């Protein structure tokens, strides 16, 4: 993976830049020592590492604004960072860039039950939001598996999801407002505690923009009342086709479960060996369907789901009868990644989305690829919304295995696009999938996206080298090619 060539002129000015940043963020806020910079050299995509030129840890929006303004005026690149759990290399530093860490923005600013929202600084963890409101029976719905560690700022940048987003939406559906700082230092307030906008939806555009459009310094999220109850149904199927058909039938019956997760045989075995959740080992596919809401409704839907599953050949069918049992059902799924980590020195987590009915096809093609690349693969799948997480098992110490794993991963993602899906469902493009963007988008599609980038950051200083395979200059992108001059389709009716 190639990153933009470091700018030698900037590297030569390192001391001067550090001094200028030190004047903005006094005290311990500027980091220069190599051993301290190590902490930032990588994110959740550990295959890539790069020390930043300087790290800076501001504490106020005003400081962020002055840092960005300085970097903009001096042509210095900036990489924002939350907790560094990105799985796509979104927070990977640049050798000639300033790493802007938002960890000190860790305060909850306002809890407003009347308006059912919470205002937090971006460095608050995802779980931290729920913790702040759970005493009153509220929670923040998007729940990425990394929720103990990942920050709300990172969630906004990646538009993160979780197992409950089938029913409750992704980050983008649960946000009300942001404060963002643009690269020129402009501080904008987008949205607030009200719904929607009557102007361009900047809130929606910024969500999922991977730190390329602005630095988020404050976030207002909606919070929901915790459902009255939740029960999970554990279903085992002899084939993944039957499991897939069961998912389609549940949705076809008008049921939108709180969560619906599928695991394939390798994932089931790894998880069971790790946590002893009591998963059946003789099935090809395991489905966990969680129903939440009022007790009467949940009981009713649990019965319906069990019935549908039986009609689709489920050989295991168990319903949780207590909160402990529900958590046990989930324990294996939640520990799927570390469970794979136990049976393989390294694993590479992919994140494509496919139309659900393509699952059997995609799984069988993946088995062929697994043989071709001679690497094992285990699958966990947000079955309700078609988001697939193949985990490719490899050993980085074996020469060539990482490269093979990456090639395997790229082929899986191309397959996702080929069957009508997309490259990434929730982990983002980052550096990881940057060079695959052309599989899904034409040159013209990507140029239009980059023009939007130009509207925010004309010199491409914010997180460059991520998301776009080719960096065009804004002047070049803005050029118009004008043709024509004839009145179009003169033969068509007009009045």
């Amino acid at each position, binding site marked *: 993976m190639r990153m933009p060539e470091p700018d030698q002129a900037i590297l030569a000015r390192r001391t001067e830049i550090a001094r200028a940043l030190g004047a903005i963020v006094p005290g311990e806020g500027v980091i220069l020592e190599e051993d301290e910079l190590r902490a930032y050299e990588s994110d959740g995509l550990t295959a890539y590492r790069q020390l930043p030129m300087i790290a800076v840890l501001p504490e106020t929006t005003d400081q962020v604004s002055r840092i960005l303004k300085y970097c903009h005026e001096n042509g210095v690149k900036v990489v924002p960072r939350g907790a560094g759990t990105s799985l796509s290399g979104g927070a990977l530093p640049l050798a000639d860039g300033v790493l802007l860490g938002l960890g000190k923005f860790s305060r909850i600013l306002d809890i407003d039950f009347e308006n059912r929202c919470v205002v937090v600084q971006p460095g608050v963890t995802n779980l931290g939001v729920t913790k702040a409101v759970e005493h009153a029976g509220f929670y923040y719905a998007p729940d990425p598996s990394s929720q103990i560690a990942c920050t709300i700022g990172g969630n906004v940048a990646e538009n993160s999801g979780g197992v409950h987003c089938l029913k409750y939406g992704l980050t983008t559906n649960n946000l009300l407002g942001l404060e963002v700082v643009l690269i020129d230092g402009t501080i904008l307030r987008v949205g607030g505690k009200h*719904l929607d906008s009557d102007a361009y939806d900047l809130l929606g555009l910024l969500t999922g923009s991977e730190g390329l459009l602005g630095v988020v310094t404050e976030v207002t999220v909606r919070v929901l009342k915790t459902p009255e109850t939740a029960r999970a149904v554990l279903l085992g199927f002899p084939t993944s086709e039957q499991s897939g058909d069961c998912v389609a039938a549940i949705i076809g019956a008008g049921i939108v479960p709180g969560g619906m997760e599928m695991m394939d045989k390798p994932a089931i075995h790894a998880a069971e060996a790790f946590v002893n959740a009591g998963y059946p080992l003789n099935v090809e596919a395991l489905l966990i369907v969680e129903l939440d809401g009022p007790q009467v409704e949940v009981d009713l839907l649990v019965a319906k789901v069990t019935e549908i599953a039986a009609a689709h050949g489920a050989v295991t069918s168990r319903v949780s009868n207590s909160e402990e049992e529900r958590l046990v059902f989930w324990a294996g799924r939640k520990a799927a990644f570390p469970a794979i980590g136990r049976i393989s020195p390294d694993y590479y987590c992919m994140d494509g989305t496919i139309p659900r009915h393509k699952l059997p096809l995609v799984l069988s093609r993946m088995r062929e690829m697994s043989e071709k690349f001679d690497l094992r693969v285990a699958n966990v799948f947000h079955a309700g919304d078609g988001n697939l997480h193949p985990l490719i098992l490899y050993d980085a110490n074996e020469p060539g295995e990482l490269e093979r794993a990456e090639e395997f991963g790229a082929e899986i993602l191309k397959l996702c696009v080929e069957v009508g899906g997309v490259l990434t469902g929730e982990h983002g493009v980052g550096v990881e999938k940057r060079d695959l963007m052309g599989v899904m988008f034409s040159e013209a599609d990507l140029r239009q996206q980059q023009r939007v980038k130009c509207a925010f950051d004309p010199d491409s200083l914010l997180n460059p080298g991520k998301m776009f395979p080719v960096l065009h200059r804004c002047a070049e992108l803005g050029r118009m090619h004008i043709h024509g001059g004839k009145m179009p389709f003169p033969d068509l009716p007009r009045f």
Partner: protein
Amino acid sequence: MATLKPETPEQVLEAVTWAVAEETPLEVIGRGTKRALGRPVQAGNNLELSGLSGITLYEPEELVLSARAGTPVAEIEATLAAKNQMLAFEPADLGPLLGGEAGQGSIGGMLACNLAGPRRIKAGAARDHFLGAHAVAGRGEVFKTGGRVVKNVTGYDLCKLLAGSYGTLAVLTDVTVKVLPVAEKTRTVLLYGLDDAAAMKAMSRALQSSHEVSGAAHLPAALTGGSPISYIAEAGGAVTAIRVEGPGPSVEHRAAALRRELADVGETEELHSTNSAKLWAELRDVRPLSAHPERVIWKISVPPASGAQVVARIAHGQDALCFYDWGGGLIWLALPASDALAFAARHAAVRAALKDCGGHATLIRAPEDLRAQVPVFQPQDPGTAALTKRIKDSFDPRRVLNPGRMAAGV
């Protein structure tokens, strides 16, 4: 002035390319139901998309539907209803409010105006269900964004930007939306005789419960008399409505629980599915204000707890009619028709009322000369206004698509 009626995406491209070359702006029209919404557009020609029509993909089990942008919403809703599905954001039909007929709008127009209805509080707005698009940018270039799956973070979410851009950035040619199952049953709990502030409190309590409320609206006394639902028309005072949807036993249970929990605020009543459907369609399409076709209509979105206060400020000393949706967060306000001078003063009062709480006020209906006189959309701070212009530049540098519709220079 010509009206171009393309029948293929290629012809849309041809039309926009031509407009760019000629530097002659186009007014982009879906099926024309919301032309009276926004600032008056100065365009040499019209680009009407009704010829670009038809559902191109519908997979009920995948909860997804694609259609040409000019497809009537009515056709889409009928197709979905046949499979017991719906557009869950409950898009308002603003046709009659704006002086036209009901049921005429296109899906492209619905998305471009980011419509929503009472279920907004639970299910989101058009923006939240807009999965993918093919479009022709004002530069005269075709592009696509998004896809046909719900979970997708590949590249910028330009669907969000196009939703609510009122045709000022690009002409949508094909769109894909998420669809959802229709709930089996609906119940609406009615509370009688609350003043605005008490209604806000009651709705807030309902929304803070775990009963998954999917609608919370308040009709002050002045607007209940004309309701087609007898439980409301005969109330003789204000009515607050709280909706729950789901399987039969579940809605019964939740409606009963809401009535129990809100018993302290006064007398309650309950509407079943048919009457509920009628009531929420009324509220969605702003029909409680339909007896006042001469009035100027504002749509105001504020933090729900501020709703009553905002209205009190605007209504102070003047004849204002309004009702609330979204638990108080959405205010549909009707002010008397007036001469330009009085109109300017009322406009200033609306803007001032939102100063403390934030939000936006949009002038949805007013005579053309008045819409040219004041900002129709919420005025922006200088930083946002400058960014808005740069975004417009990135799609439509020559200002050929609906120039000026949202703001001067955009």
